């Protein structure tokens, strides 16, 4: 299983290496960068939802916390962007840790509601603290500095996010096939079985929730610096739904499913722009067809078909 995953990772590396020389213009490079950022966020969510079986409808809240940490701390307090990113990730992780025990006791729809509420609260705080965040209008984000030089050009950003994506995919592949990762997947299969073999269930749920939140926060920071502007929409409910849709379409409990889901659903709205106002309808129809014909998600369904054929 891990061998196939490493082959997949090799292909991903090759693909990422040649993309800059084949994209026709900066518009496409911009889309690829957004795809990479989304892929890591979706991967973080898939660890929580697909592998550990804990639904979250508030993940965009964590992305928003990272994004606003990177906007607010350098702008108002003059922090270095890198320290702001780390502080944002730490705060997000702390919040996740505090809420993890009470809300991850819940299951199924109840957990979905609780995480939905958490996301909404974060979004409202961002909207209301207008003196700091610019309120509903959003605010500009200072540019990122790495080791003394400013990240300005798209191609520089591209290499940064590509490296982060590769590192995240490698980390995730290793994690799920480790004692920690197997215990995590056990939570999805049967919690009581996990308990009786000695897994401290609340602790593992909290660990994956924090990991997932911290990854989302860091990617929120990166996204904010790359775009140069944040608005509260980054943390809203629709963004959370978009992320969970990417997980489901790509494939639950599939590392490469996360990447494929993020790539497709980032590209789709751009490709559907020709439908002029009806693109959301077409988008919805494609999702429904996906769920009917590929209920396990694209990558697991195709992988099963492929292995059965050989």
């Amino acid at each position: 299983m891990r061998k196939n995953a490493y082959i997949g990772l090799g292909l991903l590396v090759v693909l990422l290496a040649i993309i800059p020389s084949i994209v026709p213009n900066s518009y496409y490079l911009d889309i690829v960068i957004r795809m990479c950022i989304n892929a890591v966020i979706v991967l973080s969510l898939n660890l929580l939802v697909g592998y550990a079986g804990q639904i979250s409808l508030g993940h965009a809240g964590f992305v928003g916390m990272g994004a606003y940490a990177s906007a607010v701390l350098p702008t108002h307090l003059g922090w270095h962007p890198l320290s702001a990113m780390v502080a944002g990730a730490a705060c997000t992780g702390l919040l996740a840790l505090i809420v993890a025990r009470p809300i991850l006791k819940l299951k199924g729809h109840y957990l979905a509601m609780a995480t939905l509420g958490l996301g909404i609260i974060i979004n409202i705080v961002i909207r209301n603290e207008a003196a700091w965040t610019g309120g509903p209008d959003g605010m500009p984000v200072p540019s990122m500095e790495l080791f003394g030089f400013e990240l300005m050009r798209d191609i520089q950003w591209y290499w940064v996010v590509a490296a982060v994506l590769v590192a995240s995919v490698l980390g995730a592949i290793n994690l799920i096939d480790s004692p920690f990762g197997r215990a995590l997947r056990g939570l999805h299969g049967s919690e009581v079985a996990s308990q009786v073999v000695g897994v401290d269930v609340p602790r593992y749920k909290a660990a994956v929730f924090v990991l997932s939140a911290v990854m989302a926060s860091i990617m929120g920071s990166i996204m904010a610096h790359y775009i140069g502007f944040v608005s509260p929409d980054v943390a809203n409910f629709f963004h959370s739904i978009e992320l969970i849709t990417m997980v489901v379409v790509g494939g639950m409990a599939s590392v490469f499913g996360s990447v494929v889901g993020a790539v497709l659903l980032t590209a789709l709205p751009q490709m559907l722009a020709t439908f002029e106002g009806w693109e959301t309808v077409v988008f919805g129809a494609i999702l429904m067809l996906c769920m009917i014909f590929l209920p396990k998600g694209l990558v697991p369904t195709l992988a099963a078909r492929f292995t059965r054929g050989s």
Partner: protein
Amino acid sequence: MALLEVSDLSIHFGNVRAVQNVSFSVDQGIVYSVIGPNGAGKTTLFNLITGIYRPTSGTIRLDGKDIQGRSPDELARRGVARTFQNLQVWMNMSAIENVMVGAHLRLDRSIFKAMLRLPALRRRDCALRAEAAELMAFVGLGDYVGARADSMPYGALKRLEIARALAMQPRMIFLDEPAAGLNPKETQDVDELVRKIAASGITVVLVEHDMKMVMNLSDRILVLDYGKRLAEGTGPEVRQNPEVIAAYLGGHA
């Protein structure tokens, strides 16, 4: 001193007294069976001892230390393993991974070492996989080492749970109806497996309906009826007890 001492154990669910003032003790290294008609409270008793339920009153001692109300994962740390009557197999994993998670407490569970897949962790994982394959062969699942859990038949899954429990290297194992739903040949195999487990020095506590198996295997037997202790003793003692006969034949002797 007995390995497990249960005294005056009770649990009430509303007005239902599922287990009432049950006392018994299990010595190290024996096979101890709990029998009784359906609904007698056998599985509830297992759930109490293994920490799934918290008793309303009474004490449970393991090695002389109170363990009532402790969580299942704490009990696992003290060497208590169990299987389930209604299977609790991780269907989202392969068969061998199910057994590997059984060794959870003996492994390095660091999240960062896992992400980096450091050489020590990699070596330990390889050794663990080999160990799990051996355990699968021990319980008679040698043919399923490469299988997915959700593709295995019922009888094999029952044994997979036993292999997972053994991977914990427990001192004590609770088997909840390991032969339920199995054909006579498979039942015979489970009978032999339980003997092998007991011979390896693990104390076995068994809930089982197959009387032939219970009488063959058990050093001592506890009979429950309506949550109460009806009788306790060796096989022949229990078999001749008039109250036990009445409970099983449904009469009022």
